[in-house]
């Protein structure tokens, strides 16, 4: 801070000091500013109401937000629990369901034939192209083999990474709720 600025600050502090502060030793410039300041202060005090404000009769009531402060953490914990339940159920169901194979090539061919057919015969009446029937058990075996290959590649339960990450984040949220950081 420059010397001039310090000097001006000291002068203004003395000029605008409370009315009972000592006034001796003021330079003429500061003294005239102080005179104006005291006149201003008198007017401000005169503008105050003569009677006391009814402030003593104010009642203190805690704000509504404080009364319901517990709602937010409880709601957060409930939401987190619900989320955990839903995600776990979904993952378990997904893991237990065998992957559904796509339509057999012969069936696709026969369907396209069926659409192209102007006579619109019933699908069951359409014979196989080469006469051989599609074996459903073969489908299931292929699906199971594909799933096992996928498990072997991941070397763990599918989706475990996502589940672990989600669980970690939910635990973080719970910790923040308990620490009242939200």
């Amino acid at each position, binding site marked *: *801070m420059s010397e001039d*600025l310090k000097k*001006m*600050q000291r002068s*203004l*502090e003395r*000029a*605008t000091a*409370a009315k009972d502060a000592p006034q001796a030793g003021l330079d003429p410039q500061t003294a*005239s*500013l102080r*005179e*104006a*300041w005291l*006149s*201003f*202060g008198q*007017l*401000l*005090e*005169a*503008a*105050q*109401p003569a009677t006391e*404000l009814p*402030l*003593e009769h*104010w009642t*203190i009531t805690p*704000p509504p*937000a404080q009364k319901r402060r517990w709602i937010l953490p409880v709601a957060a914990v409930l939401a987190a629990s619900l989320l955990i339940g839903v995600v776990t159920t979904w993952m378990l169901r997904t893991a237990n369901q065998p992957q559904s194979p796509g339509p057999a090539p012969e069936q696709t061919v026969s369907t396209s034939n069926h659409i192209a057919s102007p006579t619109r015969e019933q699908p069951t009446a359409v014979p196989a192209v080469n006469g051989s029937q599609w074996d459903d058990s073969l489908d299931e075996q292929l699906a199971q083999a594909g799933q096992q290959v996928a498990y072997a590649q991941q070397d763990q339960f599918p989706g475990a990474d996502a589940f672990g990450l989600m669980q970690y984040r939910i635990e973080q949220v719970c910790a923040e709720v308990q620490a009242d950081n939200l």
Partner: protein
Amino acid sequence: MADRGRNADDQQLFADWVREHGKAVRGFLLAMVRRPDMADDLTQEVFRRAWQARTRYREQGNARAYLLRIADRLACDRGRRPETTVNLDADGWRQHEPADPAAEPSRAVLMAEETERLTAALDRLSPVQRRVLLLRFYGQLSFAEIAAEIDCPLNTTLSHCRRGLETLRKLFVEKVP
């Protein structure tokens, strides 16, 4: 048990604030907004906000400065908001205000003159000069604190104060109309 004790302490603190600083806060707001009804509303709002944020105050210290900072922000917010109320003119007020049987006519005339002089003085000050001088008068805030409150550098704040005082000097000491 501890909560109840702390609540009692808080209530005592609040009562002390109202008793010691209520008039200063109300005076500051009246000079800022120039309407007694609005000043009363804002005064209550200041104490309501101060009560809500009393835990923050405990880290700060000076109660009057804390309350005046809230008052200053409220008055500035109110000034920025578009006017949604209708003001009665003087005749309207006379019709709605009950006559004060205890008021002496001479006292009423004196009050009217002083109010007129104060209004003239406040009108001559720029809004920022008014804030600086009123925060200094009612809160005895240091110039550094005022600079922080009005978000100005210290030297600018000092300049505002000096120019405001010079305006008041012209009005009250040199009696320039």
